[in-house]
């Protein structure tokens, strides 16, 4: 297996390339110098302390958390509708309709941003606020939710719900008592993924954010001030740690959901 070994070396080098930027984050977050460059100077936690006292940053974090939670709920609800419909009987135009709902996955984000900006500002004359960002994020997160929930719904045995209805449950309570618990891991995983995407999204948020910026938009502003960069590194370290933790939880629930549905794991979120 000589061929396999050299390929393996390449794959590991590739992972190093993927992780290279992220590894630098904690180095500079704890580095006692205002300039982000080598050589490193010494250890400090002052950049993390500066974070905690930055009122504008905390406000933007609150905005982003609110937007991300709302997006997670709406995208997962819409995703459940589409994934369940996708697992049910055929109807005219089914493929086309599902394909259309999945379209934001391959659309350049700037197109989504520009078109919503035109409708909200120029056509409807509304003021931009957190809800305009939530509307856009729900649109782009729904395809991810559908992709995750498809795994949960598609492999469900329909005879279980039918059995519940034969035993006297209504259609809704059969869904609530039989199907919902079975797909719950998929739902949690979908909410976590949508939350993570929304929390990090910048391209659309920059166009649609109101007077109170979201956290990525605030970070974008900070990047222009060299003195603020170590604080950005500290913030980045916290964000990376947070998203890794969320992803590990999401992956755990996704796998449990697959196991519950009794299918072999093919791996990956997409």
């Amino acid at each position, binding site marked *: 297996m000589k061929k396999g070994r050299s390929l393996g070396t390449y794959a590991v080098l590739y992972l190093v390339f993927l992780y290279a930027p992220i590894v630098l*984050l904690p180095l500079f977050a704890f580095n006692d110098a205002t300039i982000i460059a080598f*050589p490193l100077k010494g250890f400090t936690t002052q950049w993390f302390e500066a974070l905690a006292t930055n009122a504008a940053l905390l406000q933007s974090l609150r905005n982003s958390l609110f937007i991300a939670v709302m997006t997670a709920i709406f995208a997962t609800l*819409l995703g459940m509708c589409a994934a369940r419909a996708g697992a*049910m009987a055929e109807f005219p135009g089914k493929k086309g309709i599902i394909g259309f709902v999945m379209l934001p996955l391959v659309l350049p984000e*700037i197109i989504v941003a520009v078109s*919503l900006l035109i409708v909200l500002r120029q056509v409807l004359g509304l003021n931009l606020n957190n809800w305009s960002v939530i509307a856009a994020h729900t649109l782009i997160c729904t395809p991810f939710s559908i992709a995750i929930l498809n795994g949960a719904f598609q492999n469900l045995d329909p005879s279980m719900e039918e059995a519940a209805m034969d035993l006297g449950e209504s259609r809704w309570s059969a869904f609530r008592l039989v199907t919902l618990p079975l797909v719950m891991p998929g739902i949690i995983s979908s909410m976590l993924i949508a939350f993570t995407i929304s929390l990090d999204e910048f391209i659309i948020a920059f166009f649609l954010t109101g007077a109170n910026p979201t956290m990525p938009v605030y970070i974008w502003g900070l990047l222009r001030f060299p003195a603020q960069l170590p604080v950005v590194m500290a913030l980045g370290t916290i964000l990376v740690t947070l998203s890794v933790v969320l992803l590990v939880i999401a992956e755990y629930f996704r796998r449990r959901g697959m196991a519950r549905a009794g299918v072999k794991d093919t791996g*990956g979120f997409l």
Partner: protein
Amino acid sequence: MGLREYATTEGGRAATLVAPPFLYALALLALPILAVVLFSFWTQDFMTVDTSFTLANYREILDKPIYTMLLGRSLMVSGIVTLVTVILAFPVAYYVSFHVQPSKKSLWLFLITIPFWTSYLIRVFLWKVILGYNGVINSGLVGAGIIDEPLSFILYNVNAVIITLAHAFAPFAILPIFVALEKIDRSLLEASQDLGESRVTTFFRVTLPLSMPGLVAAVLIVFIPTIGDYVTPELMGGAGGKLIANMIQTQFLQLNNAPLGAALALVAMVCVTAISLVFVGLNRRWLRGR
């Protein structure tokens, strides 16, 4: 059969369920894009929009060299990024699919996707730290005595944009290729070798053709979104590395010329779609039966 009766059949209930996400996408995607098309035929008249039909925006895009130059550069950068990303990604997908134990495959995929989920802005900025004048690469090379002066051709130009984008879109390329490789029936490879093909010719005559659907998907999923990114060119491109998305952003948010911005966005999208369709058409024979 009436609509009310249809709604109680299996297919009818499925259609009712799919209605909310469909209507949502219709209202927030299809209609807004229609508005963009309309706006592109209008003009900005100081603070108001002149709604008489005109091709002035499109004429301006064709006439002023800056727009065609930016568009050409954007398409070129997206093309190179796609090529680099897919070529670098293929061996990794191949390794995970063919050489990693089945029980460890999802761990590998998980490791590959994690960097993709971490703050995009900060990831792009960190490439600046790696490629910069006092960056990791330059201080490393100078420290090792390989070069005397820091390299300057790796930041604030198109090269830097390409490296950063290729890094950002790596997982997008690996996953569809991996899925296609997983679907290949392994007995076909054995059959090929039993019939006298070597491992190399088996790869080129069996594995590669069968993985084409994944390769095509990977190309599209990298090529199309990269055209809409303005963060990487803004941070990494310097003056000579700006792309069409920067211009669209400037027209909307700084110059307050939504109609011209709309026309630019549409032209960019039409170009990308056209190139993608041609690419899919060229690879039609590999995609048959899928």
